[in-house]
């Protein structure tokens, strides 16, 4: 079947099998930041935004996403770079495999806090929002420090 999907503001038209998963569609079109880390929809590595909402691309039919706008990490280079430097400063990355999905979730979380007027989120609120992103290497402590500093940066949450 034919689908028209906008990825990072670029239109893509393709003829796909009905059961093609969005993750495989995105990788087929070169968005390699989107990765698969599990087969139970548990790890969060494959997180992308559909109409600004974070979802697991490993559990979305490309057919259902027809007509929508998808954002992957490739489309958020600037924002990712800013957060990435906070991660680097805290030594938060080990192998880095979990980072693309994790960064997508952090950026989505920041937007949601802003929308809800949460200017000073607690660690508990952050942990709850990010519980769907697993990391095999770290103990999350460095991640948490990086997020706290990132959200409190000049020009951060208001």
């Amino acid at each position, binding site marked *: *079947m034919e689908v028209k999907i906008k990825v990072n503001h670029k239109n893509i038209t393709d003829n796909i099998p*009905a*059961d093609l*998963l969005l993750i495989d569609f995105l990788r087929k079109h070169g968005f390699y930041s989107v990765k698969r880390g599990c*087969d*139970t*929809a*548990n790890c*969060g590595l494959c*997180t992308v935004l559909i109409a600004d*909402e*974070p*979802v*697991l691309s*490993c*559990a*979305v*039919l490309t*057919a*259902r996403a027809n007509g929508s706008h998808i954002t992957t990490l490739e489309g958020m280079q600037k924002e990712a770079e800013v957060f990435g430097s906070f991660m680097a400063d805290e030594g938060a990355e080990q192998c880095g495999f979990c980072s693309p999905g994790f960064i997508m*979730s952090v950026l*989505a*979380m920041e937007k949601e806090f802003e929308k809800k007027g949460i200017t000073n989120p607690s660690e508990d609120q952050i942990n*709850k*929002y*990010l*519980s*769907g*992103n697993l990391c095999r290497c770290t103990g999350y402590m460095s991640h948490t420090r990086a997020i706290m500093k990132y959200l409190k940066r000049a020009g951060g949450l208001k």
Partner: protein
Amino acid sequence: MFNGKNYLRPSTLEEAWTLNQNKNNKIIGGMLWLKMGHKNISTMIDLSDLGLSTIEENDQEFRIGAMCTLRELEEHSGMEQFFSGMIRNSIESIVGVQFRNLATVGGSVYSRFGFSDILTVFMALDSYVELYKGGIIPLEKYADMPYDQDILMRVIIKKRTRKGVYLSIRQTATDFPVLACAVSQNQEGAWKIIYGARPGKALAFESGLPEKPGLSDIEEAIGKLKSWGHFAGNMRGSAEYRKALAEALLRKAIRYTMDMTRA
């Protein structure tokens, strides 16, 4: 992952229902559970175009469309107020935000999983399901019905004010519950106590608690719970362990609920 040959988005419920009568076809909700299986599906039926994606609220009830996501349910301010955060508490431990942005109310309730937090919390409220052919029936009745090929259109929760709490024990924060307990008390003082993940399906425990239970009433209810033969063992815990947890959760839940009704 399953295989699916065709994908259709019916524009009427009748069309969707007709497609669903063929056992080789399947309704696709959030697909999170389906995706873990290996079925060969002929036509994947997407209910997205049938107006089942909204939560409507009127004087009488909340009407939750089958295609609403768990995240929408969790974030709904009307239900948050009316049911004192019980619904949010039951949902916020399910995997993660990106998962709950996909998982649907319809897929969750249709599945009637033993471990279901959602079935457990809905059963502690005044809930009904609306089926396309089967009409509106109480959720407790639906919980016991065999899986059939009707379409679950929505879950309806009556606006009868209930104070209550949702408690669960999990081995890790976002794992399936080892035991879940939803307790609520309506304005007339009647209690509903539901245990889920027993590990069997959510079930009501008839406690006999009076409107304002004293210590001896609570002890009597605990006595009844001890001989309630509906806990069993599985890899997450033995029947004895669940019984001990059930007692602790019930004591806590009664106390929290009474604190709320007093407030």
